């Protein structure tokens, strides 16, 4: 099922969460507004302490906002206690009940909702099948592996068929390989159930692979909301560009061009075509960003001349670090071809060629 952009499943309006008082006052969330669509895999991405988990807890009802409203399909749920919200959570620590079996854990929510016994049993079996855990239904939760606990936690949260599923860094306790598997599994589950997923993570790669849309957060604010492609290729702020992937920052003189684009004149005097962050009319000095893989190192001048500082090989790619003649550094990533070197040497004088529209003008 594709995301339905017309209907907001969760509508966060001007929400602030303030902890402490007086001198210790800390705004964990500072006037945050965002609309999360129905059937969407939505990710809150940011470093620890950025407020992403706080926002999740407010949606779940574990905390109440200091200001603002949280609407679920148009109804304000901010004052409701968690047990009255059709929203379920997969906890970072899974929080499986240790005194219950796998099946009892999964059935708990339905039982609390007062569903008849046979309906609970049927639904539990269905969920066990969905997460491929039928064989272990009568095990205690302490007798299964971390990955299996993860699946049970998912099944337990999905069983009551919530309107929205909240996932608080659910993959962070798993090792690399299992994490990769679960990423695909989660996508599949979201697709099959058609439930809105709100996923919290600090792992940018995870966010880019899984999400329909991402909100990048820092210091209690949402800086940018967009598709993974938007976020990666068209960051609007320095923090977003810096937090996601490797980036080169350059200073340039910019002026508007046709089609909402800009012409950027680099320190070398060369001009390149650049895209522009939303709602921005470029003029004067500005920061532009270029992803390392969107540039090439060439013999000769290119757009920016410099000297090769370092060549770092890592399997699929090689990073070439160039010290620019006009000051500053620039990293170019080039894909490796079989059995060939980078074609360049340390200390070699080279030029950097930036692809058309590869540069993005930032807001600041």
């Amino acid at each position, binding site marked *: 099922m594709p995301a339905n952009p017309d209907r907001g499943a969760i509508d966060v309006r001007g929400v602030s969460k303030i902890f402490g008082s007086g001198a210790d006052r800390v705004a964990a969330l500072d006037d945050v507004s965002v609309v999360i669509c129905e059937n969407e895999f939505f990710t809150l991405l940011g470093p620890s302490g950025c407020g992403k988990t706080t926002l999740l807890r407010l949606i779940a009802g574990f*905390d*109440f*906002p*200091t*200001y603002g409203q949280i609407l679920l399909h148009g109804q304000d749920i*901010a*004052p409701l206690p968690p047990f009255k919200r059709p929203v379920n959570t997969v906890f970072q620590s899974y929080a499986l009940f240790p005194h219950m079996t796998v099946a009892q854990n999964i059935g708990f929510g339905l039982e609390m909702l007062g569903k008849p016994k046979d309906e609970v049993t049927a639904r539990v079996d269905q969920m066990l099948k969905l997460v491929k855990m039928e064989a272990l239904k009568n095990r205690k939760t302490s007798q299964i592996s971390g990955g299996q606990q993860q699946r049970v936690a998912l099944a337990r949260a999905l069983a009551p068929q919530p309107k929205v599923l909240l996932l608080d860094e659910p993959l962070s306790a798993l090792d690399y390989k299992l994490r990769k598997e679960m990423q695909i599994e989660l996508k599949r589950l979201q697709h099959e159930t058609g439930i809105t997923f709100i996923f919290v993570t600090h792992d940018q790669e995870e966010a880019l692979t899984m999400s329909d849309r991402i909100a990048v957060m820092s210091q209690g604010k949402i800086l940018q909301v967009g598709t993974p492609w938007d976020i990666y290729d068209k960051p609007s702020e320095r923090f977003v560009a810096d937090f996601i992937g490797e980036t080169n920052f350059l200073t340039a003189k910019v002026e508007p061009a046709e089609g909402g684009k800009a012409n950027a004149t680099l320190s070398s005097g060369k001009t390149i075509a650049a895209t522009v962050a939303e709602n921005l009319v470029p003029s004067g000095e500005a920061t532009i960003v270029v992803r390392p893989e969107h540039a090439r190192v060439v013999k000769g001048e290119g757009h920016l001349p410099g000297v090769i500082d370092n060549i770092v090989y890592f399997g699929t790619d090689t990073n070439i670090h160039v010290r620019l003649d006009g000051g500053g550094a620039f990293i170019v990533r080039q894909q490796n071809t079989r059995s060939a070197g980078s074609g360049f040497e340390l200390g070699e004088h080279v030029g950097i060629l930036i692809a058309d529209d590869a540069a993005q003008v930032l807001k600041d």
Partner: protein
Amino acid sequence: MTTAAEIAARAERDDIRKRWLLSTPALVIIFLAGIGPLLVVVLYSFLTPGPYGDVKWEFSTDAWVGVFLQRDIFDDTLGIADAHLSIFLRSVRLSFATTILTLLFGFPTAYFIATRPERTQALWLFVITIPFWTNLLIRTFAVQEVIRNEGILNTALIWLGVTSTPIQILYTDWAIGIGMVYVYLPLMVLPLYASMEKLDFRLVEAGYDLYATRFQVLRRIIIPLVKPGIIAGSILVFIPSLGAYVTPRVLGGGKQMMLGNLIELQFGAGRNWPLGAALALTLTVIVTVALLFYVRYAAHSEQRHG
């Protein structure tokens, strides 16, 4: 319409009210059969003794004066109450001796347990805990049987030819001392063990690496690191020693009194309840001071070690 913030504030108020309600039964019981009666003791210490025990409702500070001083029967002058003073001194002396002896025996014992392999450690700990939880009176009685004139200690000594007649240990200060060391030893070992268990033996290794001898490692590394345990153990032994009642009664035979027995005496044959109350409060004050000293030390050391 109420906002979420108001609801949160109300939830917090409700939570605190609920918490007060939940603690009420415990607080009431302890007040009725603990703190309340203690306040009555304060009141009684300022009254006049009744002729057959109990009190007359007349204000008097005689009881407090009587804790350390006594009025001469003939010329009404005040002098030091020698009997009280000697009991006070015996209590303090015996409590100190008990603390030091339990420390001397308890330290190596706790160290021994803490350095056992993890699997046997629990077993050793269990072995030391068993006497701790068995009845104090029975343990005192067991000591009494061992040290009495016809007990197995004297029987053994005579059989070995060390002495021809039994050595009188029972009903002496020695008996009380032996009994208290025996009874309170686990109280010293347990907190010592608790702090030794956390001891990082890589520090000991570092000590040896830097040319320290075994004794220097003990004195300069191990003892300073387990100091909180030493203090805790000492306080835990000193406080009940000072207020001991059963051990001196059974092993001191009513002649060698300690503070606890002196207090009892005022409520029995002494028929001076106000003096008994004043003595009890004096004991409470000493114990409280020792506890406060410990709490401040604990808070201080916690601060230092984060």
